[in-house]
């Protein structure tokens, strides 16, 4: 396993964005051009000795750094991972810049900076803390925001092989679902959603798998299934991420409108307004958000016949069918044995 991790790290150096879903490997030559990657790193060994040098090479057992000696000389020192206590990098101050750009939604600028940091640090993932590695979760967000699912998925694959903390892993998997939504990978989305739902102790941990399934069903015109999935966060996710709740409201409204259940759709709309959560457009649900914003709720309330504008003529065909567990998983609420 360790060996695998390290190999992943070596792949990373060649360029992230590697995606194992039959897609072409994306090679970002520019990634190697960051200046930080060529700056020396400081190494503190467990025995207290310290060294400084530029990364020369690395493999699954350790790495080498080089140091200039004299005018043209070069000393190369090799270390094994187990001997390393700490590694120090330049450029920590860049995280503040990243935070500012992230706040301003300057995704490309964030990517530009973070990629340099990533290249500098990725080889050292075997000895970095999960918190340090998880910082690059922001980079995944940026890729999703610029709708680059390939790069996002490549990075997700790398991060999830290093991160084991449940909260971090959950966040990374949520990103995975967004990427599947972006790229229309139905089978993978259903599989990951179900895994997340069934592995999670309860829905309040994350209701996003339900939301993702809901969007996926909308896409496949399985409105009843979309509606039923959306209901789960609305019923059980108290105090969870309001973005997920607003998306769940939006899915429930769209599904019921498509099914021409006008009074139910209006009820969800009213509940949403009462809860003061409003959906905002996100790359993985833009088309649905656009559709939702086109609904004239006031007019629909005054004249419910307008439902014909929004309804799908085949919507109620699904009414008479059984709901499959794979389409709408069974929520596992926690029950303690007293």
């Amino acid at each position: 396993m360790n060996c695998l991790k390290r190999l992943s790290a070596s792949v990373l150096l060649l360029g992230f964005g590697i995606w194992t879903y039959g897609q072409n490997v994306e090679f970002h030559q520019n990634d190697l051009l960051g200046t930080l990657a060529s700056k020396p790193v400081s190494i503190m060994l467990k025995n207290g000795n310290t060294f400084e040098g530029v990364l020369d090479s690395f493999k699954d057992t350790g790495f080498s750094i080089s140091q200039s000696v004299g005018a043209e000389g070069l000393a190369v020192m090799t270390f094994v991972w187990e001997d390393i206590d700490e590694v120090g990098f330049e450029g920590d101050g860049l995280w503040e810049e990243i935070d500012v750009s992230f706040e301003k939604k300057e995704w490309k600028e964030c990517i530009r900076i973070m990629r340099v940091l990533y290249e500098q640090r990725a080889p050292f993932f075997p000895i970095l803390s999960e918190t340090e590695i998880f910082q690059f979760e922001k980079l995944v967000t940026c890729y999703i925001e610029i709708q680059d699912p390939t790069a996002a998925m490549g990075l997700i694959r790398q991060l999830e092989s290093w991160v084991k903390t449940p909260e971090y892993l959950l966040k990374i998997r949520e990103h995975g679902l967004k990427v599947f939504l972006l790229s229309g990978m139905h089978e993978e989305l259903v599989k990951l959603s179900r895994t997340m739902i069934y592995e999670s102790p309860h829905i309040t941990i994350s209701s996003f798998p339900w939301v993702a399934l809901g969007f996926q069903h909308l896409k496949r015109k399985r409105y009843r299934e979309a509606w039923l999935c959306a209901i789960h966060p609305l019923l059980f996710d108290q105090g969870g991420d309001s973005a997920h709740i607003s998306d769940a409201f939006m899915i429930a409204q769209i599904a019921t409108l498509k099914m021409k259940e006008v009074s139910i759709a209006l009820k969800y709309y009213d509940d949403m307004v009462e809860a003061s959560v409003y959906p905002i457009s996100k790359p993985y649900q833009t088309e649905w958000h656009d559709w939702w914003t086109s609904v004239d709720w006031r007019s629909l309330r005054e004249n419910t016949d307008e439902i014909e504008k929004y309804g799908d003529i085949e919507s109620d065909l699904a009414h008479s069918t059984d709901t499959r567990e794979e389409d709408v998983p069974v929520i596992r609420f926690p029950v303690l044995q007293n």
Partner: protein
Amino acid sequence: MDSPSLSRGVAQPGSAPALGAGGRWFESSRPDHFPSSSNPTLSLNLMKRTLLILLMCSHHGVSVSLAAQQESMTFVELYSMARQQFLSENYESAVSHFSQIEEFFAEEEEFQEEVFQKPYRSMYGMSALLSGRNEIAVEQLENYLSTHYQKTKEEALLVMGLIWALRKQGDSGKLSQWYDLFLQDYPDHRDRYLVQFDKMVWHFELDQDGKAEAEFQRIWDSIAPSDLRYRSRLMVIQRLMDQGDLQKSSDLLLSAHWEISSMPELAFLAFNSLKVGEWLMAEGRYEEAIKAFSKVPFYSVLLEKQRSQLKTLDMGLASLQKDDPTHRSIIRESHYRTVATQMRERLKHLEVGSDYTVTFLLKYGRCFLFSGRYAEAWVIFRSLALRGELDALEKEQGWYHWILASYGAGNWDEARSLCLRFGELYPDSALLPKALFMLARTQQDAGDLARANLVLSDLMKRFPVHEDFPKWQMTRGFNFAKLGESGDALRDFEEVIDSNSVPEVILIRTRYWKAVTLSSENRFIDALQGLESLLLEHPTHWMCPDFLYRIGMIHYSMRDYERSEETLHRYLSDFPEHHFSHEAKVLLGDVSMAKGELDRAIKLFAEVLPNDPKLFMYSQFQIGKILKATEAYDELERHFKIYVDDLTFAGKARISEALYWIAWAMNQQDRPHEAIPFLLKAVRDYGNDPHSGELLEILDQLAGLKKSVSTESFANVDLEDERVLEFVTSTNFQSWIELEIERAQQISAQTYFARLQLYEALQLRRRKEYDLARAAIQNISLVDSMEVLDAQLLGEVGLALLEDEFESGERYLRRLLVRFPNTPHKALAFYGLALFKLRQDETDAAKKWLLKFEKETANHSRAADAKLLMGEVYARIGDFEEGIEAYRELLRWKQARGKPHVDALKGLARLHQLNNENDKAIAYWQRVYTLYRAYLEDVSEAYLRSAELFEKIGDFRSGLKSYDEFIGQKDLSGFSDYVTAKQKRRELVTKHPELLILEDEHGGEPLKEEDLRL
């Protein structure tokens, strides 16, 4: 104050630059200003940290004169020690020293001086407060504040200290004034809302609920921190609940938007919400109960959150203590300490309590169920039903309610399959009979009465002594009656009536339905007897109006108009709002009509309002009938003109019929020259408008007039209108139609053109020239755009194209559904799309379209076709039981007699054959050739198939007999099956020559040589 160069610092109100939250820096060179503090830095730090000390030091520093110090060293020393103890947080010792000062030096002049009194009293009071000597604290602080109080930020703490001491002491008498003083003088103090909250609690402690609630309202309306606002609200809710005022507590709970994530006392909120929710549920206020329940988390989630919140609070408290060694935040700290204690207490209760999740979810789910929010109920109950870890009883409850949710949502198929699985999983469940009865109701609601009765029969067989048995039997009888199977219905009703211990509610309803069924069988006397005895025995029963109305109806059917009228009048006067009142008024009109009181009848019919469109139209046409019968043609014409022109009646139909009567009335008044132009004008006005309907019917009227009105009747009329002239002079209606088609093409009136084409096609269909009809319809698809086609045209064109396997037909049908979602012609789309999907082997989709047909357009003329297709779909899926039921249902339709019945029999035969029930299949084929001789091609097929099946099951003799019977009918010789039969017979007798001998022995006629020839 003299020299700024000196280094010792003390603070003094009203001097020097501000220091933090109200402190001020003052520099002095006088050593007596800070006698006990040798380290100015420490003093500075202290001053920065504690305003209280600054205040006291400053008072001291400026007041004690050097002379006094020299003369009263012991006094100064003692004071210095007391002060030192105070600063070192040795409050008990400080109290002791301060009390000694008073004991020994109270008479001293310096002691009496205000400049001494102020720091002395304040330090003494606070030391007493912090060492728990509340009585002294109250005395000292009150003394200080009543004498020296100034409205400064520093003194706010002393007021809070006094409030605190009074609260500890339980002295309520003076509290109010100090609360008010604090709240009035320090509206911006950081602890203002804590004090206000404390005041609310204090009022509650004194049972001054009104005042407490007023205080709560002030907090709620303020900008107080949200946790404090919500906590105060929760406290009021709790108080109201303790007092049993659940209404008010639920109002308070539901009218706030609770921020669950920032709630400091989630358990408190959860328990209150649970209690309020249960109460609202018991009150039948399900939507509100849902809102309350939505604030209740799962038990384990609540435990986890409560623990985590407590941990956060404990950490906050620790940090508060650390950052506030001088207890400036005494009130704050005390407040949160109380909160923490309460939370710990609740957590303890939670931990030892049992997991409420399942019982809560059952209640939550039921609220959704009862408020008609079936999807939410479905999610909750499904999760309970399929939750492995729950005990059987809980899962059983989940299952049962899951069925209810599915049933409520109208998912008949799912409800049915859930019911069946429930029966398998919980065969001994006390809920099973209920579930099965619901299954029957599911079928009933889906309009499938026959299948509902199968379930009911099974239910009655499985639970013959169940208390609900009479109800099941009554329901089955009712279904039989609706199906027109009156014999079975009456048998069920009579058995219920004759059985013992039938609940009265069931008995009365059964007797009523028995009477209604008898009446439908024209057994009026028996029906009347039944209803009259019901009325006599139960004069106050809620069904009395129904009894009366039915009695009135039966009298009418028996032509006893007087009694009918009398009964209906009684019914209308006693129960004017009853659901049959509109029908009764119409019936009264019919009674008057039957009695020959035509004016009265017209008056009664005219009173029927359009809010019941069906009865209104019936009444309007009854008026027309009377006017026609009385030969009041001018009135008839006027009456229907008003009907046609009335734009306020939205649900109006039968327009072409009204137009017909107008034209007919004109004709009767010797004005055929007006009637025809009138209809032609309607054609001209509406013919090319895709949104107007009934043009085909108007054409039918014109066709009738063309036949009945001679050209001569127009002899004396000056026909200025060229189109009327054309109509009158055309040789027949068909040639006029052709002219119109040509004209429509010339002027590009595409809708009109398409309609005329369709009219022609329908005529061809009537003449059974189906291929030509289809071709004519397909011609319509040549119009420029689908948009010019009306609903019927889209449907007919789409279907005709699909029937000839042109896939483009699908587009027409889908367009029909989009453009005309409410038209009855959408039946054509449902049927056509089902056909299309079946051809593509998408049986599931085909089934769905057909179910939609049944649900929305069950009475369309294509209903029999749809049912036959449904049988075929089931056959493809391999669901023989459903397929057989579909065909059987069609056989029960009287309106489908003839060819559809033949096809249903053929379908049944094929299904049984597929299911290896060859004997049954043979029986159905035999029914085809014995009952439907007119359908020669089908008869041929039926003979051949039955013969083949006889062969298959080894009954060669019967097979041979069937072949012979078939071959013996020369009128069938033109069909290919006839030739095949001959061939097969030859093979059979070649294989089994003994059959021929046996045939002879049995007296069969020997076959001739030519019969054996192909």
